[in-house]
């Protein structure tokens, strides 16, 4: 059941009207009341550091810490966070706004105290990298017991031969000397059109199985791309000579198993005010590392088809994959997580309706039996798609995030903050000053109206 849905903009920033899109979330597995969220949020005072959102009460209340080095008009560019399984160290992957013109700049950061107000130190600093995605795990037993294994999926456009799908991994990110044990490893081993798609997502199981999913771009004509969805796997935390090579394609025997092949993407096509191109998610069942789920987006029927989110599952460690188990037409930002009962959580944003009444709707659903029993998604948020007008892209984000800890699911998404309870069928808590009957946001003085904008929202779903 839905425990809470919270607009995480703090009360003291009631005057802000930023486009706080593309959220991310980390929940400390060792103490799930500790959380960090991120978004395209600039330092409210235009200082040198970008902020993170922190909560130490399970997401009931959130505050900001300006601790991420580099602050542009939207804070950082891409930003992703993850806690180690034990020890409470937070890892962060960003695209720094302090990059040379025309370049992206990956930085990997770390802090042992997520509530600290000190600037996070930089562990890795490399140009030409896109969309970092952080996951972390900690083996509880030898070998490697207690050491933080951290995986930062990314699209390294500096890679040779178009093998851009990459994971920067460290087997001891908490203790190893700089760059904290991190080194890039190419997930892609096959031919591409010159690069892979931006998203590289990973899922870590406590037994040391680590899955990654990337999108292999195999052909391009203008902005129309043909892609394969490819899963790779490592069975020992990546602590082998050639990480992520444990899975070979059952067809061509190359590294990685294709989940689907020759799917169509129209790059930077628009859906509502949002751009399209790359949706991707992966989750492993904590009760059985052989069970792994993926989600992706493509155009069903080719270039003129509708953008559709698909969910598929493997029960044999990624070697074979089901047909679509769930599809969401005009879906965006699918997020997957599996809780301690083996139940799959799926959150997704969907453009529904037509014309001026079109709405972005964000829903969450849980299935315990691979949708053998029908599931009615819980609508978390719905709002007119045309408002507020975007100030940049992505409008809602190129991604959102869902995390499972024990029986619980925790998620973040971004959406219109227009204060109308109709937009929140299962209620919501705003920290910022809000007059619900008047559908108006107010500044710190409680009198001056503040325009609607895109805000990040957190939700907690307690599972069985």
């Amino acid at each position, binding site marked *: 059941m839905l425990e809470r849905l919270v607009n995480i903009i*703090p009360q*003291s920033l009631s005057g802000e009207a930023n486009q706080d899109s593309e959220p991310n979330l980390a929940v400390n597995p060792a103490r799930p009341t500790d959380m960090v969220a991120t978004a*395209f949020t600039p330092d409210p005072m235009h200082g040198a550091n970008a902020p993170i959102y922190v909560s130490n009460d399970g997401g009931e209340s959130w505050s900001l810490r300006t601790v991420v080095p580099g602050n542009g008009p*939207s804070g950082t*560019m891409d930003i992703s966070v993850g806690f180690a399984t034990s020890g409470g160290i937070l890892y962060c992957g960003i695209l720094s706004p302090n990059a040379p013109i025309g370049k992206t700049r990956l930085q990997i950061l770390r802090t042992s105290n997520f509530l600290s107000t000190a600037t996070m130190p930089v562990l890795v600093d490399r140009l030409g990298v*896109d969309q970092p995605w952080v996951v972390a795990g900690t083996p509880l037993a030898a070998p490697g017991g207690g050491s933080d294994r951290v995986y930062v999926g990314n699209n390294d456009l500096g890679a040779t031969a178009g093998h851009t799908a990459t994971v920067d991994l460290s087997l001891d990110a908490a203790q190893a000397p700089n760059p904290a044990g991190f080194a890039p490893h190419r997930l892609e081993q096959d031919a591409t059109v010159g690069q892979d798609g931006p998203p590289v997502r990973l899922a870590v199981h406590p037994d040391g199985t680590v899955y990654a999913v990337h999108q292999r771009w195999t052909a391009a004509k203008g902005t129309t791309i043909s892609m394969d969805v490819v899963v790779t796997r490592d069975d020992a935390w990546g602590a082998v000579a050639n990480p992520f090579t444990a899975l070979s394609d059952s067809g061509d025997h190359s590294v990685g198993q294709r989940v689907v092949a020759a799917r169509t993407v129209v790059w930077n096509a628009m859906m509502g005010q949002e751009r399209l191109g790359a949706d991707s998610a992966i989750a492993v069942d904590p009760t059985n590392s052989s069970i792994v789920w993926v989600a992706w987006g493509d155009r069903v029927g080719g270039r003129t088809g509708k953008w559709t989110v698909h969910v598929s599952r493997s029960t044999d460690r990624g070697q074979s994959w089901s047909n679509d188990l769930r599809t969401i037409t005009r879906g965006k930002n699918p997020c997957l997580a599996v809780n301690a009962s083996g139940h799959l959580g799926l959150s997704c944003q969907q453009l529904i309706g037509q014309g001026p009444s079109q709405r972005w709707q964000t829903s969450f659903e849980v299935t315990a039996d691979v949708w053998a029993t029908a599931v009615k998604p819980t609508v978390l948020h719905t709002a007119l798609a045309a408002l507020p007008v975007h100030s*940049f892209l992505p409008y809602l984000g190129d991604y959102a995030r869902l995390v499972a800890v024990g029986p619980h699911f925790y998620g973040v998404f971004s959406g219109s903050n227009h204060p109308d309870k109709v937009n929140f069928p299962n209620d919501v808590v705003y920290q910022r000053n809000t007059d619900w009957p008047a559908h108006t946001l107010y500044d*710190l003085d409680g009198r001056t109206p503040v325009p609607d904008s895109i805000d990040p929202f957190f939700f907690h779903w307690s599972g069985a």
Partner: protein
Amino acid sequence: MSADVSGLLRRSQFVFECTVEATAKSMLPDLPVDERTIVAKIEKVLHGPAALAQAAGSEVTVQLAEGLPVLTVGDRAVLFTTAIAFGQHMAVAEVGRTAPDAVGSSIMAAGAPATLPGARPGRSHPVLEAAAQLETDRLRAHAAEAEDVVVGRILSLEKVGPPSISEHDPDWWRATINVEHSEKGKATGQIQVLYPGSSDVHWAHLPKLRPGQEGLWILHATGVDLAQMAPYSLLDADDAHPADQLDRLRGDGN
């Protein structure tokens, strides 16, 4: 204008007049507290970002600067601060302070013209005056680093550069500008200027041009790897201004 006020402004982000309400206390429960941590009520916002312009009446936690006297309950001060945290309340770190009387009595909204009830005509608030001067100094420093500074009208725009399939593709465009006045440098006649047309988060804040647009253009020499597309580029949010800002750049206006 006081040099002290200007110096403090350069190092601070949020300036307000306040009254101390409590000492050795924080309104944000997860922040450390010592004898230099106070809670104050903001009486007036004197300088700061738009999001905090209406903060008068709010309580703020302040970590007082080392080396300055610890304020006590009932003390009034103008505090120059930087951010620490934003929660139900905000917390800031003091950079420096002045006595309220030292900067005059006024009401001022950040990001808006000052109103000075009861003030003598023509006398502006020292903090506002310093802030405006800093903005002008910053614009001049930016122009001093430029290759050319011109006033001109955009004649045409064209897409240039190789297509790139990246979320962060700059989407390069080339503008032809008819130079009507050269303030700095040697640009005359028609010049070509490179700018990113992309609305991606990486590029959206940079100048976007339209045919017929007149402006004050602060032009930079295009880097070697892009120079074949145009000799000049607009790659800073401060590179494009309305033409009437030329007076401010020259120091003829405010």
